[in-house]
């Protein structure tokens, strides 16, 4: 065991600026680190994905009660085992034409940051995709500002959605 070392300092500390910058760097690195499992689904023939931790469950379509005074993409609310949850029509949100639901239509129930829950209406749900980080490309100048990145699957591109953007209806 080495001798206890004591250090006391008063006076100029040149190292802290660098430190503070380093702390800043750490933060931004953590932000862009993306998870590796995604739930993929279809909208208007195209493939999309969401991180698996964000999806609480996937349910069949059930009667939607319309709610007045909300933006158009919010179709209304559904009752989910005692909870009342808003349903966002992802087609409308992404500017795609509205379609009648089919037997394959599903509602993806998402976790919110604050514990709140939202339902996302999609044409159909496909599967869970696992890909290594290298195959994720950040989307620059893509179709929609809600697309955070592109995942590669075979010779297909899957658009990874940015949930916060999708749910931000004030924009």
């Amino acid at each position: 065991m080495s001798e206890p070392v004591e250090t006391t300092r008063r006076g100029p500390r040149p190292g802290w600026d660098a430190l503070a910058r380093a702390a800043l760097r750490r933060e931004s690195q953590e932000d862009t680190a993306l998870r590796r499992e995604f739930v993929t689904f279809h909208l208007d023939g195209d493939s999309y994905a969401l991180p698996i931790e964000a999806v609480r469950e996937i349910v069949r379509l059930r009667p939607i009660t319309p709610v007045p005074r909300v933006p158009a993409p919010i179709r209304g609310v559904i009752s989910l085992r005692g909870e009342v949850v808003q349903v966002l029509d992802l087609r409308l949100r992404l500017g795609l034409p509205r379609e009648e639901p089919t037997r394959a239509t599903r509602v993806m129930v998402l976790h919110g940051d604050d514990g709140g829950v939202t339902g996302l209406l999609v044409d159909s749900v496909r599967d869970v995709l696992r890909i290594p980080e290298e195959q994720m490309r950040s989307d620059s100048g893509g179709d929609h500002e809600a697309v955070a990145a592109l995942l590669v699957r075979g010779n297909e591109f899957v658009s990874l959605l940015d949930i916060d953007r999708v749910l931000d209806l004030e924009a």
Partner: protein
Amino acid sequence: MTARRKTTKRRTKAYREFVSEAEEILERMRDDLSDLADRRGQGADVDPELVNRLFRSAHSLKGLSGMFGLDGVSELSHHLEDVLDGLRMGRTAVDERALGLLDESVALVAQTLEKLEEGEGAGLDEQAAELIARIDGWARAPKAEAAGEGELDLEPAMQRALTEYEEHRLRENVRRGRRIVVVEANFDILSFEEGLAELTAAVREVGEVLSTLPSPGETPEAQIRFSLLVATDFPPEGLAARLELAGGAVRPASRSAAAAAAARSEPAPGAADATAPAEAEAAPRPRAEELDAEAEPAGEADSLAGGDLASLKSISETVRVDIRKLDELMNLVGELVIQRSAIAKLARQLRQDAATARLGAELEKIHKGLERKLQELQAGVLEVRMVPLRQVFEKLSRVVRRLRRDTDKEVRLEIRGADTELDKLIVEELVDPLMHVVRNAFDHAIETAEERLAAGKPREGSIRLEAYQRGNDVVIEATDDGRGIDAEAVHRRAIERGVVDAGNHLSRREILDLVFAPGLSTRDEVTETSGRGVGMDVVRANITALGGVVDVASEPGRGTTVTMTLPITLAIIQALIVGVAGERFAIPLNSVRETLLVDPAEVQRSDGRELLNLRGEALPLRRLASEFSLGEALREQKQYAVVLGIGDARLGLLVDRLEGQQDVVIKPIQGPIRSVRGIAGATEVGDSGAVLVLDVSALVEDSRSREAREAPARRAP
């Protein structure tokens, strides 16, 4: 106090984190200092935990500011820390001077931080130096005797891990003759925090936790053992029983303490070991109420005076409950109620068919019994959620006391009806709006002492907070005897700001109500004239969100009263189900005064409004279809008018169908849209999905403000 003006530093994330944390620390210190002052003022004992918390705050502040090169702040924090260390270690007493110095120091540090943020640095050096000199002067003055050093005969493991402060608290408690015991328990390593928190809280009810020492548990990979060093008046076996731990879990902390206890106890000849009488009494899990029976025979009544026992007993009868569990319970009861409704319906259907009529009658009888029991259950759960307003009122008292100290204004706060109870969630939401109202009264309504004397009023102004129950509501009134609201000035301002048209004639009541209009009360200049200042629009929004209403009445020169009416509880309500344009809605029944079938011919149109003559009074009408843009209603058809009433205001809501009454649980609507005006939540009715519940007070409010806005000039009556 020189501060380095490195602008790059100011913008880095780490620096911003520091500022944010520093502000939190200062805020906490201000609150704690205020509490400390209040308790002293009330003659209560100084809470050592409070002083320790203040010390730790100053300590953190010193460390942090030092790391960022803010030597001045660090220096001042260092002196703050010294003062607080002296206080917590019992070297000095908490007196006026100490409190004053602490207040000033905290204020100066806050000021310095602010100036640094704004890019200024100079100007406070002198003040700081002067304050530091005064602190040193106070520190040098002759002090109270320090508690004696004395031998602390603890188990070595515990002794070595005690910080200086913990040692001090230990000595303090020994000096006061309290028992020092060790309470031990094993916990699962993944979930120990909850269990430990419960144990600590239970111990705190009857003693002081001096130290918490972790050690490897029975199975080190999966368990952790915690040894709490506790100062208490309970005997070890009594404490063990109370905490529901096995007998061996609580033991005297040291042999000298055990011997001292034995010596104090009755003639147990030669019983040098206090554990002997303990074994004789340790019945299997004696309950809390039998504690007095235990204490007497051991002759340890000296440490448990009769009065203490009585109050201890009442503590053991209360249980702390997580409000979320109450919500779950409430939800369950709500679901049960809905199921019960379904059973009732089924029973009725069975009765209608001859083949099943007898079964139906049986089912109905059972259902009646179920209904009664459910009502009791519902009432019971609701009662558990109810809390008295006392805590909120006490917090407001503290705020007023602080304001009094800060401004030198003489104002007295009277409280009545603190025992009035409301749903816990509502009470929590009430704190902000009540604070606003009281602050406004203090700042703007109450005149200065000179003005009051000149007006023939007593020198001291008064604000009275009164709460009482009225039917299904709770009413809270805030009354001051200040200058009252100048209606003329308010009206003038409202016109100036475009809130109302110049041509409108408004009754005095309507003018006073303007105080709540957004756009009017957000300017400071209005405060002089209105007697109520910033934020009344927010207050109204908050109260409306809780399903209540707020009104104001005032007499110039005499005073003002703000009245808040709130529903007692939000959880389960009776609702009227109505149908409009193919959709269903639920309307809380306690806001429904009556329902009427309306012939279109009876509807009077006047100035763009629709009215109904209801027993001589003009009832404003509103079509729910129009309100929610649900498609054009056919005006020729007969419709039902649901007469809504909140306070004195009335509104007739026109709907297509009335579909019956039902108990419903209002649930929050989850999702990206935070709130919808006019919708209070949703519920389930039958199998067909969610049904929206109307927010009656919002609808009535909107109707009132629409009236004031849209009506063109009307002739004076």
